């Protein structure tokens, strides 16, 4: 930062209660008129010591806390945690669990549905940051349809606590398949409306094109993940490149940024990240449909290896004395790679939990990216990174 005279600059405290920071993020912004010269993120307003709390809970009791790590995509957080614990249990033959196939499919189905609903929040709030309120409500109304399905199956609309070590808390509610198919059909139509309303709007494009472009090298070296990484043109998706669960059985594309905004756009700008999210929604719809097609029918028996939903007894037994060791499990969440590092000392409590989240690492690039942007661009940048503050602070 090149400061000529201290008095020429204004220091603004953007947040922690600023409408554009998507939560309690505080940015200390030094501006020269509208142009920002320096930006220092100040985080920690939502720190709840979730990782430390986990050390005092039994393995299965931590699931509701993962809901709160990223409450916009609780299903994915659940998925990451239970997969991590199941990977730990698989280290020893005695504790290895055979998850029912149907449960695996439902996990992926719900993870993808939650990815859609999370992207709807991200895309919608981004349009609202750009000053368009109508598309925001159109996006959120689609999220409500997904929440309706979740509510019927697991009883909650935000923090689901639906997955557990060994499978799921309960099977899909009767008639869920048809409801999901109908919802996906409506969603596809709504996405086209949404795109015609806002994504192809010239003002919207002009606001995002070429703004805060992250080069591929920067994206890697600052540890960006998920759509933010793919927006910079890096073709990397854990679901395809290191499949977990049954993701290896699905056909889908991994969208990457290609300077979609046209002549004014640059690779890795805000519009690329936005379009990558839009395309991911379409891919998630494809995955959901495949999951519905391939899913074995419910057998009605809880621990049936094909049509059941949970091997609860085996899981309880295994979790009393898990193997000693460490596991780092990574999952492709809506906000990118989420890693659960768990250390087990063989007791029924975890020895240590460490959660690696995409939003937290995205904060680190602000100091490099923001100088030279305008205040309105900073708002676009926060929106395009789709940060969720509980995930930053945990």
């Amino acid at each position, binding site marked *: 930062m090149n400061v000529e005279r201290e008095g020429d600059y204004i220091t603004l405290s953007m947040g922690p209660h600023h409408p554009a920071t998507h939560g309690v993020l505080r940015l200390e912004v030094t501006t020269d008129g509208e142009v920002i010269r320096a930006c220092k993120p100040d985080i920690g307003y939502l720190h709840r010591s979730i990782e430390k709390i986990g050390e005092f809970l039994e393995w299965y009791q931590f699931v509701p806390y993962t809901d709160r790590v990223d409450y916009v995509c609780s299903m994915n957080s659940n998925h990451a945690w239970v997969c991590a614990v199941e990977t730990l249990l698989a280290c020893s033959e005695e504790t290895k669990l055979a998850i029912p196939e149907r449960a695996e499919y439902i996990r992926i189905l719900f993870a993808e549905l939650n990815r859609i609903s999370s992207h709807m929040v991200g895309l919608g709030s981004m349009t609202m940051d750009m000053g368009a309120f109508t598309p925001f409500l159109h996006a959120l109304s689609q999220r409500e349809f997904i929440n309706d399905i979740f509510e019927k199956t697991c009883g909650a609309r935000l923090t689901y606590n639906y997955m557990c070590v060994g499978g799921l808390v309960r099977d899909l509610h009767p008639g869920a398949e048809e409801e999901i198919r109908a919802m996906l059909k409506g969603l596809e139509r709504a996405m086209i409306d949404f795109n015609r309303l806002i994504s192809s709007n010239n003002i919207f494009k002009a606001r995002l094109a070429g703004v805060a472009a992250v080069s591929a090298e920067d994206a890697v070296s600052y540890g960006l993940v998920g759509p933010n990484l793919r927006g910079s043109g890096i073709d990397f998706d854990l679901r395809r490149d290191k499949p977990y669960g049954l993701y290896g059985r699905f056909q889908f594309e991994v969208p990457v940024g290609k300077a979609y905004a046209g002549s004014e756009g640059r690779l890795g700008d805000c519009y690329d990240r936005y379009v990558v999210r839009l395309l991911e929604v379409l891919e998630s719809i494809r995955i959901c449909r495949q999951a519905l097609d391939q899913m074995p029918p419910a057998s009605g028996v809880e621990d049936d290896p094909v049509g059941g939903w949970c091997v609860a007894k085996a899981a309880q037994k295994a979790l009393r004395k898990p193997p000693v060791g460490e596991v780092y499990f990574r999952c492709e969440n809506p906000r990118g790679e989420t890693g659960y590092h768990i250390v087990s000392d063989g007791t029924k409590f975890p020895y240590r939990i460490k959660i690696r989240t995409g939003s937290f690492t995205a904060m680190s690039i602000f100091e490099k990216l923001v100088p030279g942007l305008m205040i*309105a661009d900073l708002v676009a940048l926060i929106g395009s990174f789709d940060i969720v503050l509980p995930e930053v602070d945990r």
Partner: protein
Amino acid sequence: MTISVGPVSDSIASWFSLRGLPLALSEILAVLVVCVLPVVGIVFPIAGVAQYFERKIAASMQRRKGPMVGAVGIVDLVADMLLFWLPRWKRRAAARRVERLPVLGALLRQVRQWGLGSMAADGVKMFLKEDMVPGGADRFLFRGSTYLALTGAFLAFAVFPFSQWYHMGDPPVAALYLGAVTGLVAVSILEAGWSSNNKWSYFGGIRAVAMIVSYETPIALAIAIVCMWSGTMSLQGIIAAQYHPGWFSFAGWNLFQSPLLTLLAGVYYIAALAECNRAPFDLSEGESELVGGFHTEYSGLRWGLFFIAEYGDMLLVGGIFATLFLGGFQSPIGEQWIVSLPPFAEAVVHTLIAVAKALASVGFMMWIRWTLPRFRIDQVMKLAWTKLVPLALFCLFGLALTQLVAAQRVGVVQVVYGRYLSAPVVRLDLFSWFSSWVLVGGAIGIVVWMAKRAAPAQAPEMRRLLGKESA
């Protein structure tokens, strides 16, 4: 001494003096009635009602219901206030009895269903909230700016022609006056932003000034061009020049005279949108960037005054747009039946038409507001200086040329409209009208076609997102 602002005030003055008031007093009273009525009787109520309609329009665009009064209705509220000494269940029972009344009950149910109570609730809320001045603020400017905002909006109505009989005044340089007083908005917003002792407000104020000052150029150009076209700066004169006898009186409107005037109307409308800080130019407010912009620190009625000033500005812009391009208060389907009415009835009919045109324009602004995202400040500036100003200048030279050629071909005429005789204007004959549309319209069409051809092809992913291509 005789003071008068037109025949309507004269007739009101004579009504007063016939009832025994001294002449001078009755004249002053009549002038007050004429001058205050438009603001108090038309602009203020419309500002309140327009807000209700804006909420309904927004709701319908967002597929929701908008303002509605839920289980606790107006009757319950009134019963709670009036019968406060009774226990709650008795108040409820009384309210239910009122609701079962034959006509009143049905009416109340409608009021509830349409959410009309929200207007009253908003008003009451605004009046009852605490009027706060933040610590460290410049109290004098902080308070003064609200009045200035209203002044700017309402002073402009002083020359606004509601009908050929009913206006506060029609100075021969009314167009110049309009440009002068509407600039007051910038001053009031700058004052508000600066005096609030809040950096976000300050940003809002600075943005507003930068934007409004820039957009005054295309506005002034547009008004000047219309004045040139009509040969007068009087708003009544501009309207008179748009008079076209017969049932198809809309054919005389400036909007349809030449494609350049249609283009100019677009330039004026966009610039006027920026002038009254409406989306997509609401940068000075920018709730997602500047929290609330210049009015962040205002509360209660003071905030409400800004709000009314904004709606007053919108109404004014709609009215001026109608005056300049849509024949003002003239009806689109023939004027002869209105002009032949007695002055008072004519004033009423014309006022209704003028307000309807202004409101249509306000509705269009609301539609824009709930559709488009916001510009960035540099884009706003670029739009003004690289697009709107050159376009307006292009219209200026094009229309001057049109007038010159047409004056040679068909000569100039004077339009007789009611009690007005327009300045000598050029009325295009069918040939020049048609050829100007073909020439200029064709040129614009070719430019648009070439721009579309030059644009790079859309990526297949984008086509897929827009539903033009399946995966």
